[in-house]
């Protein structure tokens, strides 16, 4: 579980003196002194949340093309992204990164830029190589990439928006296109180059019926129904901006051998904790918030979506970081539910107290319970030959470990 170390967050962290930056990163990722965020999303090139101009690792001028990726470079990430990722890995050596692109290099797309369109078929091979070069370059910097998604939100094509406000990096894919890319290009190339990063397909909403801009669960179904593509797909990634977690559960019941992940979506307040519980109870094997630290102006952010809030905020005038309720709420899950934990059945006689339980690999059992009521509630927890009574404070998230 974790959040993201996208450019906005990394930039804000880079503004802090080194000791304070390290302390802040420790509070995010350290297993015992922090929230134990142990799965963090990073970006392959630019996302929408950045204060920098949009960029890829292979930008060309005018009509220039570089199908052999001779000019590929991650140099721009060395300014403030890679230093943060390296420090995060120092604070939590078990931290895993998964990476998503918002767009291929502009010259590979039908629009000729990074604002929408789709990947030109003649560049499928080059784009697969782009992933390999990214993984190898990050590995060389000491940042192993655990997994990649093919495209952040492949249903979105922002070039179709008439208001330029919405023109941010995106690239539209159909399930059939992603299926072909994985089956014929990315999967075989990973195999050939001995790239052991996992491939997580889809990375968009869990709506059951296709909508304009949100293909829904039919998209990954198209991919997994093809054995040639499915052999390379390790997991399926979902967002929650359309549909409900039931869609993810429906999908997971169809493909029970393929884990489903929740890769983007911040949750806020007690209701947020309830939503995270709901995601796990509908089959999610992970949870990732999106955008971890914004400043007092909700930035830097060149994209159109305003981050209503994040779990941590930085006041750049004073250099003060504020850890909000949501940071501690996330930690109620992340610090105690360890990677490799198995969700177990939990029976409650009170549906008003959402809860989820996991068995950690060390045998401990962790339960997270939300008490949304304005009064304390007594619960009874069974243990061997006895039971334990405890009070849940009003409007609280409580974790107990047995």
């Amino acid at each position: 579980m974790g959040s993201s170390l996208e450019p906005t967050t990394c930039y804000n962290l880079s503004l802090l003196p080194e000791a304070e930056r390290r302390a802040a990163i420790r509070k995010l990722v350290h297993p015992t002194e922090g929230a134990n965020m142990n799965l963090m999303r990073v970006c392959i090139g630019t996302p929408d949340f950045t204060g920098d101009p949009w960029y890829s690792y292979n930008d060309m001028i005018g009509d220039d093309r570089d199908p052999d990726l001779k000019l590929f470079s991650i140099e721009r990430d060395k300014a403030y992204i890679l230093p943060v990722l390296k420090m995060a890995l120092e604070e939590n050596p078990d931290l895993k990164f998964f990476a998503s692109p918002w767009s291929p290099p502009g010259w590979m797309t039908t629009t000729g830029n990074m604002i929408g369109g789709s990947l030109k078929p003649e560049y499928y091979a080059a784009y697969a190589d782009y992933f390999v070069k990214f993984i190898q370059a990050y590995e060389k910097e000491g940042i192993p990439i655990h997994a990649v998604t093919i495209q952040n939100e492949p249903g979105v094509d922002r070039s179709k928006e008439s208001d330029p406000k919405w023109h941010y990096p995106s690239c539209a894919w159909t399930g059939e296109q992603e299926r072909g890319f994985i089956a014929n290009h990315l999967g075989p190339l990973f195999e050939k180059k001995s790239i052991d990063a996992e491939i997580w397909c889809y990375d968009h909403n869990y709506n059951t019926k296709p909508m304009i801009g949100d293909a829904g669960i039919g998209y990954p179904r198209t991919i997994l129904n093809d054995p040639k593509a499915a052999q390379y797909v390790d997991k399926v990634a979902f967002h929650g901006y359309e549909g409900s977690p039931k869609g993810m559960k429906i999908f997971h019941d169809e493909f029970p051998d393929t884990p489903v992940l929740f890769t983007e979506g911040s949750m806020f307040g007690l209701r947020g904790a309830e939503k995270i519980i709901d995601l796990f109870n509908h089959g999610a094997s992970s949870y990732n918030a999106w955008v971890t630290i914004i400043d007092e102006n909700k930035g830097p952010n060149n994209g159109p979506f305003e981050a209503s809030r994040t779990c941590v905020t930085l006041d750049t005038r004073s250099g003060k970081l504020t850890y909000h309720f949501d940071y501690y709420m996330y930690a109620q899950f992340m610090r105690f539910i360890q990677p490799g934990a198995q969700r177990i059945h939990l029976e409650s006689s009170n549906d008003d107290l959402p809860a989820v339980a996991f068995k950690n690999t060390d045998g401990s059992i962790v339960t997270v319970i939300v008490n949304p009521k304005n009064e304390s509630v007594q619960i009874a927890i069974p243990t061997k030959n006895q039971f334990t009574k405890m009070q849940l404070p009003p409007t609280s998230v409580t974790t107990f470990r047995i």
Partner: protein
Amino acid sequence: MKPPQKTLFTAFLFTLIVSVSLIPDSHAQVEAWTTTLDSSHQLSPVSGIELKNEQGGGLRFSN
């Protein structure tokens, strides 16, 4: 995390016996931490946990 154990996940009617049987003797101790919306508790250890030496029910709640 790995996906839920299918046998447990799909068997919604599994009762407290399943829950109890998952708990080894060595772990028959409860620790708890809580965070409240009003920030009076932030990952704070919960005190006053009361152990009762009697056979318990499933995870159950009461006001």
